[in-house]
């Protein structure tokens, strides 16, 4: 069930810290405005449509919740938005919150790897973040 690997988590953390350096600080932007997901979303919608993207995000959230149970308080709305993080951020330690977002993003990337393979997932991420050097092999599924 777990789609993440240590390498995928590293990638997820790099992307989050690149886009959202203040995620672990109390002075961050609204927690629901996850800039990594927002940048991924148009590409995902192009690939899967609105419904497919919503399903993928919801699936990643469910899987992440099994590892970080506090994430189960968050949910994906009918519009495909992530809700519930705003409240959670105020209740959870910043480092724990960051870790939860990393798990969630890593699960999302892991799902993409499952569906379209490491090469295409790596290519998709590389298109969005061309300046972040990522190795294709890190998207592999070895645990």
């Amino acid at each position: 069930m777990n789609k993440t690997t240590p390498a995928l988590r590293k990638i997820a953390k790099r992307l989050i810290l690149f886009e959202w350096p203040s995620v672990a600080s109390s002075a961050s932007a609204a927690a629901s405005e996850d800039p990594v997901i927002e940048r991924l979303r148009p590409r995902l919608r192009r690939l899967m449509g609105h419904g497919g993207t919503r399903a993928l995000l919801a699936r990643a959230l469910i899987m992440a919740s099994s590892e970080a149970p506090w994430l189960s308080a968050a949910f994906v709305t009918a519009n495909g938005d992530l809700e519930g993080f705003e409240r959670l951020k105020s209740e959870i330690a910043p480092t724990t919150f960051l870790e939860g977002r990393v798990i969630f993003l890593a699960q999302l990337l892991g799902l993409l790897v499952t569906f379209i393979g490491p090469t295409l997932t790596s290519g998709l991420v590389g298109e969005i973040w061309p300046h972040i050097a990522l190795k294709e092999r890190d998207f592999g599924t070895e645990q």
Partner: protein
Amino acid sequence: MKKPNETAGSRRPERRRTGPDKVKIRLLSTGVRGFDEILGGGLPEFSFNLIGGAPGSGKTTLVHQFAFANATPERPALYFTVLGEPVIKMLRYQQQFSFFDEAKVGTAVRFINLSDLVLEQKLDAVLEEIIAQVTATNAGVVVLDSFRTLVRKVAIVLGELEVQAFIHRLAQFLSGSEVTAFLVGEYVEEEVRDDPLFTMVDGIFWLSQVTERNSVVRKLQVMKLRGQPSVPGLHTVSITGDGLQAFSRTLGLDTTPAKSSHRKRLSVGVPELDAMLGGGILEGDSVLVAGPSGTGKSALATQFIAEGLRHGEPGIMAIFEERPPSYTQRADGFGLKLGAAEKHGTLEVLYLRPLDLSVDETMQAILDAIQRVGAKRLVIDSLVGFEMALAPGFRTDFRESLYRMIGALTGAGITILSTVEVEDNFTSLQFSHYAISFLTDDIIRLRYVEIDGQLRKAMVIIKMRGGNHSKDIREYVITETGVTVIPPRHTDYSKLSTGIPRRSGPRRAQEDESPPEPKATVLGA
């Protein structure tokens, strides 16, 4: 002969030769092996095409092959999906094919999901999105998959007129944008008559699959192609790890006979039989060796190939009944070292037995092997096995396809020896179950005859198109060196061809002559 294994995808686009005042239409390679030949050289650039057929017939794979073969980052292929297979699934499955180049995804080949716009019934927005994407990316190839789902969905809500207006505007835009476009849809053949879309497009390519008994036969038809002649009819298609492969009904072969008037005689590897054949088989002949089981057809075929190898003539043995190891082991037993020739690349033993093979796939495999080794001699052992290896639905095409292949190969100077098993019924002399004698220049008939209480073997040359031949019925044996024709014996028999000869006249005193093979001894006698 055209190179039979020339891969369409690897060919450079051709320019059609036209007069000075005619527009030059560049032909694009489809990336589908065999399809370019069927199309008459390739797909016209900037054409507006429709790929129709039932689900699972290979439409999406075919258009992916075209996209990957032709897309470049400068002129990318835009693949719009509409209410059909989601892009993510398409990527998941299409990447399993060898033509799928991951490096091209996102740059040269781009996938765009239009389902949301269609679900919102915004037909204008769909068109605007297509126009915006094509314009922004300078696309060279545009695919809409599944177009039928799009128009059916929208027609229900907005009406037929709105849909026709959309199609018209789309066609106008794509035609004026220098793109080669494909509309992909699960159409049924009845729709071709009624839907004006079919008159609008430049090309209609139809994929189908027909179930017959336990096999599935895939076919491709070029129903329409503006501006160039294509090969008519239904062509066999197979889907393998390389994607679709089409087999032109003509197999891409030039069937015009081109036999030289000065053809040399080729030894069969049996000196006495060569003599019976007037010095050997004429180069470029098709020889049929017919006989019942155990008469040495395969042995003779092996000797024919081995003799060619001895003279520096590479060969192909397409075998359908025995596995290659036992075939080569028997040859080794005759002292014919086929294994060494295989290692040197001058001989290929093709074992073609899988069920559901199409006759065209089988023949393509033979043609590819001929091309690989530069074969001068070909053995097909046997025609009965060949036919049995085919899916039932293909058997009706067997003789027609065989005729094309034999005609083309012999025309190119390749000498073919085919075997066929026939039953000896001891009342007549059959050549074959098939009416295939028209395929062959020469027929050698092997049969059993009962002489002096023994079931012996005799051969006769029935027919030889290229010249005179011995009319003798000659006895032969199979020894440790293979088929050996033995000297005429001093016995007078008639009706040898029936298998039950009759002594013709009184028994004459003759020298003691031992039979060619020892008689079985009876214990206690």
